[in-house]
């Protein structure tokens, strides 16, 4: 069951990467990265159990934190998190790769 769950998560991670590469807007990419991060947290916890050394959950915690901080960072430093008044920036779909 553990292995099945791991595989499922790997599949989802692949899907999120697809969305991250495709993602028409910047926010789709951010979303994909965020989701990728949460899935990595799960993957690490699962892997700890699969390999029989579950004391390494610390890494999963760090991932969760770092993921949060990066997403906040992305939002803070992309031009939209409160720097400009709402609805002024019309170029919403600009390329963000």
């Amino acid at each position, binding site marked *: 069951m553990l292995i099945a769950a791991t595989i499922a998560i790997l*599949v989802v991670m692949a899907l999120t990467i697809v969305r991250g590469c495709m993602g028409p807007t910047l926010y789709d990419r951010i979303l994909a990265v965020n989701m990728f991060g*949460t899935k990595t947290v799960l993957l690490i916890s699962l892997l700890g159990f699969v390999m029989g050394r579950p004391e390494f*959950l610390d890494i999963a915690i760090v991932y969760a934190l770092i993921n949060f901080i990066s997403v906040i960072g992305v939002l803070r430093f992309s*031009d*939209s998190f409160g720097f400009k008044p709402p609805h002024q920036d019309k170029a919403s*779909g*600009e390329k963000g790769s």
Partner: protein
Amino acid sequence: MMDIALNISSAICLFLGSFLCLSGGVGIIRFPDFYTRMHAAGVTDTLAASMILIGLMLQNPDAIVISKLVMILLMTLFISPTTSHAMAKAAMNSGLLPLLDKKENKDGVKSS
């Protein structure tokens, strides 16, 4: 007896979690615009993560491991909605409009 019960419930939790994860993954690919995708990601994520983590908790009797898992769970429950909120707000602020009706609102989404 207790062992079997634990194992079965853990398996169920893990299965549910994986299923929700997969559905979220499909959702993030298939849904038409950013806000619906976020919905897919956010809602299933929270539940899927808790399911998997609970499933893992049931597998291991060690107190430290369980407490760490609880910590991860709590953090996901805190962080996931917050990031979703922040993202939605940022997207809204930048002028990205939800796809309400394809006829009204073409420039908001498909401008790229």
